[in-house]
């Protein structure tokens, strides 16, 4: 569903590429977690799939559609949840969901939209309140509801649990698991090793624009993952 083929991004004047020859594939029902320090190229990868930036070389494919050549069609298959889901403060969660669902070319009744919000874990009484009063966790839940309502086939997550309390982060991980079971392909960028181990079917560690290592989630325990991550991060052998 999501495929990067020799995907490279060089910014003008930068000494090294932000992303260097990335090859990865996320099938339906897979959750691929990209770990790595700041500047490793994780968010660049997400932006390239969304065609918010253009690749210097290579291709980012969504359901076989090149995101550079046909960004509208490729985005139609995607849902995107950034670090903080940005919504319209004057509108309620339900109105925001209604808006984002409709502009993505879908339609749903108010009761179905409320069900999506409930499924994403948003309390019913909050759904009609202006989102300017929402916590970050509540906003993320609206983001998940948007992904559900617009029947996205692939989900891009960029640090989705950053700043969430452990309970909210755990709730979020549960939602990702449900989406995976529903057949969604998920590419998640995170610093959170626990979340990666909890949700992922595959885990990749990025360093300096390269995908340095890839593990199957069942192939590695938490301690080994942390060690591999720190080794790449520090450049020294951590025991």
């Amino acid at each position, binding site marked *: 569903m999501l495929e990067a083929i020799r995907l490279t991004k060089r910014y003008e004047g930068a000494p090294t590429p932000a992303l260097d020859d990335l090859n990865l594939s996320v099938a339906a029902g897979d959750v691929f977690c990209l770990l790595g320090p700041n500047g490793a190229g994780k968010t660049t990868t997400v932006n390239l799939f969304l065609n918010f930036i253009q690749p210097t070389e290579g291709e980012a494919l969504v359901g076989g559609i090149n995101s550079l050549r046909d960004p509208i069609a490729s985005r139609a298959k995607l849902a995107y949840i950034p670090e903080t889901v940005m919504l319209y403060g004057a509108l309620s969660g339900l109105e925001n969901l209604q808006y*984002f669902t409709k502009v993505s070319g879908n339609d749903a009744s108010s009761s179905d939209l409320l069900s999506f919000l409930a499924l994403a874990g948003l309390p019913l009484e909050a759904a009609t309140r202006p989102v300017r009063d929402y916590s970050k966790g509540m906003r993320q839940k609206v983001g998940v509801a948007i992904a559900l309502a617009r029947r996205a086939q692939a989900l891009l997550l960029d640090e989705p649990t950053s700043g969430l309390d452990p309970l909210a982060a755990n709730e979020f991980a549960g939602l990702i698991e449900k989406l995976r079971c529903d057949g969604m392909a998920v590419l998640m960028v995170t610093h959170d090793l626990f979340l990666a181990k909890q949700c992922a079917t595959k885990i990749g560690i990025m360093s300096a624009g390269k995908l340095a290592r890839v593990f199957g989630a069942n192939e590695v325990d938490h301690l080994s993952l942390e060690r591999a991550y720190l080794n790449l991060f520090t450049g020294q052998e951590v025991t």
Partner: protein
Amino acid sequence: MSQLVLNSNLIKSNSARRSNILSAIITKELREMYRDRRLVALSLFIVILSLAAILFGFTENSRLARERVAAAKADQLLWTGQGAKNPHAAAHFGQYAFKPVSPLSFIDPGVNPYVGTSVWLEAHKQNETQFRSARDKGLAGRLGGLSAAYILQTIAPLLILLVSFMSFTGERENGTLRQLLSLGVKPAELLIGKALSFNILILVLIFPLVAFSAIAIASFNNTINFSLSDQLVRLIIMALGYCLYLTGFAFLGLGFSAISKNSRAALISLLAFWLINSFLAPRLITDIARSYAPTPTALEFRSAIAQDKAKTFGHDETHPAFVLFRNEILKKYNVARIEDLPVNFRGLQLHRDDEAGYQIFDKHFSALQESFNRQDWLRTAPGFLFPILAITPFSMAFAGTDSLAQYDFTLTAEAHRRNIQNEVSDNIINFAHNDSYVSGPELWKRIASFSYRSPSIYFALDHSLEAIFMLLSWVAVTIIFALLSVRNLRPI
């Protein structure tokens, strides 16, 4: 979960999808506008200010209309009651022609305060209009009163720009643009949806003014000089023109918002444009138009007429032209002396002098109006870039308060003056047997009192084609600019 996912439907038809997206954008934008208390307050302020301007304008117009009707009646009484006298003396006694107050002038007073309200119709002279209301006002009044037209031309665009400048920069700064574009929303759809919502705001601003004005026109009740249906159609066309004018500002705001790096930059650019359009361009372009199509000063104009008039004989029986005329008449009637003529020579003399005067006045007044027309054309031409230069003549034309409407009135008044001259001269020619001939009230009453029927809407349409073209061009230019601006809309 799967069950729920199936409950949202992907809209397959392209047109249905597009209309669904546009309705979603419009609904969301209107919701946000409605919930923005500052915007609601500002919009209400503009509507109330415009309604107040219309109300004050209407009250003032009604007063002026009553005064002019009373003055015209009094003047007619003076004319018919002047007693027995020589008809030419009556022509010198003269009449006033009062310009009826255009019903729509309460929206746009146009040039009315500066060009005078009446013409003194007397023998031998085509006078200019006099009694300019601007002269009686203080400095603030002379600089332009607060009319509904001024509010719509100057203040309403500011509101539209203040609403639209953050349309894309705000979405970018808040991160919602990233969210929207990630959903596959086309920037052009966003643009059109936002523009349509601003158009609804424009209609909300203009509709109360149109409704209020329609009631005012209907209650103005002057069917002698104006047609009610004509005035209502003029009002609707004016409203459409203002909608076009403000729509251009909406697209301009959207375009600048799409290309600007941040909201501050967009606001500064748009405010600079607003200042140039509202205050700088009208003065600068007017000066340029004056230098390309200069008009004489009042003194030069009168001197030029006086110079030409000096070539005619008037009452001067020693003038060479008089001698030529006298010989021509004696030859025509085959007599040797004036006393032997079968008609009154003095009447013929007056008639010939009037005819000569008409040609001189027509030459100078039409040349002056030609210069005004050229100036108007030049002033309207940059209207596609600075739309106030197009909406001003458009609005005045349909309000019946532009210089061409004034010219039409002066032509009608002059035709009436000539009618008086011809009637009295003919009376002298046919009935006077000596210089002590007098005529009475019968003749004064036979000469119809001055009446003026305002030209129909076709007159305004015919003279507004350039302004209409420039207004349409302004909207086209801003739409193209906005479409080009959003083409490469980036969320980062």
